[in-house]
């Protein structure tokens, strides 16, 4: 199971304390992960790195709303597979909840 963390760098829509808390605990966890500055930015650029993520099997994506994440990947020409993708939402869930789901 891979982990992808989106820092939503270019907007203030994800609560800063949630982002920081999740990143800190992920950083301390000893788990391997990929962290990107901003998925929206990557989608706009149709960044080939998204394809590597989408094609890479089971992945937990820590970002925002699952519907937004799904269609951002689609917009980049690299739709996510129907199965094996778990999107955790830092816009609405607490850091505690996200980390619990992420590191199980």
């Amino acid at each position, binding site marked *: *199971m*891979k982990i*992808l963390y989106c*820092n*939503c*760098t*270019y*907007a203030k*829509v994800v609560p800063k304390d949630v982002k*920081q808390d999740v*990143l*800190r605990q992920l*950083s*301390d966890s*000893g*788990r*391997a*992960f*990929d*962290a*990107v*500055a*901003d*998925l*929206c*930015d*990557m*989608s*706009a*650029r*149709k*960044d*080939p*790195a998204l394809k*590597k*993520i989408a094609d*890479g*099997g089971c992945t937990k994506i820590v970002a*925002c*709303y*699952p*519907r*937004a*994440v799904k*269609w*951002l990947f*689609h*917009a980049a020409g690299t739709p996510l597979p129907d199965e094996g993708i778990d999107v955790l939402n830092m*816009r*609405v869930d607490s850091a505690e909840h996200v980390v619990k789901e992420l590191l199980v």
Partner: protein
Amino acid sequence: MSRTEGRNLRVILYEGPGSTPLDDGDRYQVLSSLLDNGFEVTRPVAGQEVAPPDDAPVLVLGLLDGEPLVAEDHEVHFRDLAQVNALDAAREVRKATGARTLDAWKPWFPVIDFDRCTNCMQCLTFCLFDVYGVDTEQKITVQNQDNCKTDCPACSRVCPEVAILFPKYAKGPINGDEVRDQDIQREAMKVDISTLLGGDLYGSLRTRQSEARKRFSTERDESKALLERKRCLGKLKKELDIPDEVLMTLPSADDIEERAARARTKLAKRQARSQTVKDARPAPSEAEWGI
């Protein structure tokens, strides 16, 4: 280079053999500062998966005893965190490799939810900035993200299916939150442009322009014209949540007329093509009809 072109530098935070692991606090500081400055960071751990390398330039950062082994077909740079600051090193390598330098842009553009979209083209007709287009299969697509006006969610407010997202918008369902029945019913969401502007949009604009010309030629009252413009812009701003900056950059009435003519031509061509395909298709055989 446009805002949506170029590759980001990928930073690998290396703590494997041939290096000394970072303290937890230091690792977090490095990660946080790199992400906040637009870099992508991978933290590999032996036996665990990360995204495989692509053709993006790579910088390996860590408390390195030597250079870790890497694939030879990639452009890889190494910097020892005992000697350099992570962010300074990343900036230096980004410059050296020609990787993308970010201005402080907010990635603001519409994202279409094709589970909901009915290809009605209302967004294409509505957007005055050519953000939308159609693909080779005549399906609506977002083709010029760069043209989209930051913080303007107006096209999503006129979409009758609530199929247009702006992930960086504050409120749902435009931000990607689930679409509920009440969202579709909500008057503010289901804005009909024709209703908003009083009937046929372009007809209305033509009438308004012609009336304005007449009135202007007889009355020569610039203040009335400005008041009318202010009233209309205020209405647009309120109904569609369009920011002032966008309203200030709206095209002139002549530009809108020209664009409407182009859109009508495109639509006519599309319909003609669609008719040609239907005509060219052979009539179903008796067997196909099940006779």
